[in-house]
């Protein structure tokens, strides 16, 4: 399934959007860029809320806009979730949730209120008035309401931008779960690297109204200068399965040949497939597998690439035994002293790990 977009529009003197791209749609696609780069406008074109002349929007084999042909939003079956809470204020929580469901022909309904309320943990809130819900709860209702039209496509416009950090942490697992369980392709607008690394499978980088490039999250994170890295510098994201905790409360992550032990108390029991993020500066490299050291997580890796030093520090891209990319940030001096080179087998010592979703 792909989404073909061709559009050219101007808003005043300062803003010009020009795109001509075919985007793959499986999983979560993030439109990433600074504010004002046109990502929200692009989302509105996909939704049919903006209708630039001459634009072409094709979803799979279906033309949503081409020449004079224009399918209005209410016929596109798109689930829309906006930045700020957008529940209809004159309806109750339950009426909001079911507004779209009631307008979806029964034969098109694939998701039903019971599963959705359970997935989002809002069963107990159905009879509340809107103003009795917290920001995070409202956003969960918005998500549920959008899911209940059994959409062909979900569009999220910075769904967490208006929430505080605490509420974001509360919503994030639900979004991740929704992306994984609903099977609906998602296009999400975001300017937060954190959101993108947690949720996205693919990143569309936008700048000055144009699409710069489209990469998988892995590719995007393999570049040492990736726009996805914030002040903390380069980071890698590993995907793996989390096992049950042993006696010492540590839980295994990943296959035996590339196993990490996670001890965070924040780990909910029974979580399975998950993503972890490791800052490159928390990874050291050693020529031998050190025995007497407090760092518990050592992985045998193969050096794949050594980036030229910046400020005397090099980012070294290493391949783990299960084929994932792990970035280590070490000094240029260390690279020289250890004689590190592409293809060399070394051990990565990982000091700390952040759990993503």
């Amino acid at each position, binding site marked *: 399934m792909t989404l073909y977009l061709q559009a050219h529009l101007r808003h005043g003197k300062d803003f010009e959007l020009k795109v001509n791209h075919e985007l793959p749609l499986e999983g979560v696609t993030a439109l990433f860029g600074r504010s004002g780069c046109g990502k929200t406008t692009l989302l509105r074109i996909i*939704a049919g*809320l903006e209708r630039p002349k001459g634009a072409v929007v094709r979803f799979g084999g279906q033309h949503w806009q081409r020449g004079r042909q224009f399918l*209005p*939003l*209410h*016929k596109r*079956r*798109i*689930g*829309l979730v*906006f930045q700020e809470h*957008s529940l*209809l*204020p*004159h309806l109750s929580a339950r009426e909001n949730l079911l*507004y*779209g469901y009631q*307008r*979806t022909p029964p034969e098109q309904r694939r998701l039903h209120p019971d599963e959705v309320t359970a997935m989002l943990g809002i069963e107990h809130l159905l009879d509340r008035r809107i103003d009795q819900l917290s920001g995070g709860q409202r956003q969960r209702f918005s998500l549920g*309401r*959008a899911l209940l*039209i059994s959409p062909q496509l979900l569009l999220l416009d910075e769904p967490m931008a208006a929430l505080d950090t605490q509420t974001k942490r509360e919503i994030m697992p639900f979004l991740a779960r929704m992306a994984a369980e609903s099977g609906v392709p998602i296009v999400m607008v975001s300017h937060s690297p954190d959101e993108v690394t947690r949720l996205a499978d693919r990143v569309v980088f936008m700048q000055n109204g144009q699409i710069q490039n489209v990469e998988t999250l892995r590719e995007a994170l393999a570049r040492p200068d990736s726009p996805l890295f914030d002040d903390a510098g380069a980071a890698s994201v590993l995907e793996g399965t989390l096992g049950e905790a042993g006696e010492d409360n540590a839980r295994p992550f990943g296959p035996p040949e590339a196993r990490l032990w996670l001890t965070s108390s924040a780990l909910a029991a029974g979580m399975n497939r998950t993503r972890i993020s490791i800052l490159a500066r928390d990874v050291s490299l050693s020529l031998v597998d050190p025995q007497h050291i407090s760092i518990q997580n050592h992985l045998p890796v193969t050096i794949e690439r050594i980036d030229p030093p910046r400020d005397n520090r090099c980012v070294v891209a290493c391949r783990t035994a299960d084929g994932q990319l792990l970035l280590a940030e070490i000094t240029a001096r260390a690279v020289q002293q250890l004689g590190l080179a592409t293809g060399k087998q070394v051990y990565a010592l990982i000091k700390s790990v952040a759990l993503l979703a």
Partner: protein
Amino acid sequence: MFQLGPAEWQAIEVTFKLCLYTTIILLLLATPLSWWLAQGRTQFRTVVQAIVALPLVLPPTVLGFYLLITLGPRGVVGQTLQDLGFQHLAFSFEGILIASVIYSMPFAVQPLTEAFRNLGRRPVEVASSLGAGAWDRFRTVIFPLSRGGFVVAATLTFAHTLGEFGVILMLGGSIPGETKVLSVLIYDHAEAMNYDAAHSLSLMLLIFAFVTLFVVYSINRRFEVAKL
């Protein structure tokens, strides 16, 4: 003091009919117009907005005069109607109904435009994305969320039509049962030195107008939809 004769009852009936029809017609016309006006601020919209607001500042006699020469037997509209075998519209109920619709237009359009602006585009976009078509959106989202604006628009239109005088006198004259509305009847009574009759009708209108405005401003405070 409040003894109403057949002439008074007839005038009340004409007035009430005029106010009711004007209100219904105006709500139907003003809703799409106000919606369009609320969608942005282009130059063309500003022109339309100014035209709609004209009756607020023009002397009613100016409006009545232009309507008379347009709708009357020699006017463009009046003559066309006569050529088609109908009556021209001067000195008729239909004529003063058209005049009322134009004259009270700003009192329907302004509160509605204000209400639609306050509503914003988000609820409508949300309803669209949830599969609601245009009429469905109006019925289940736009109307309930701007109900205050509709109440204010309807009440003000009704009350303002009730207070019409100059336009009706210019265009409709004072034909009993056809164009003689309360305000004109009061004028006739006063001219004829029939102060008792003029007084009772005037007091009636005064009380009605006060109650109407009181209701409007109470609603206004509750819904915060229109600033008048």
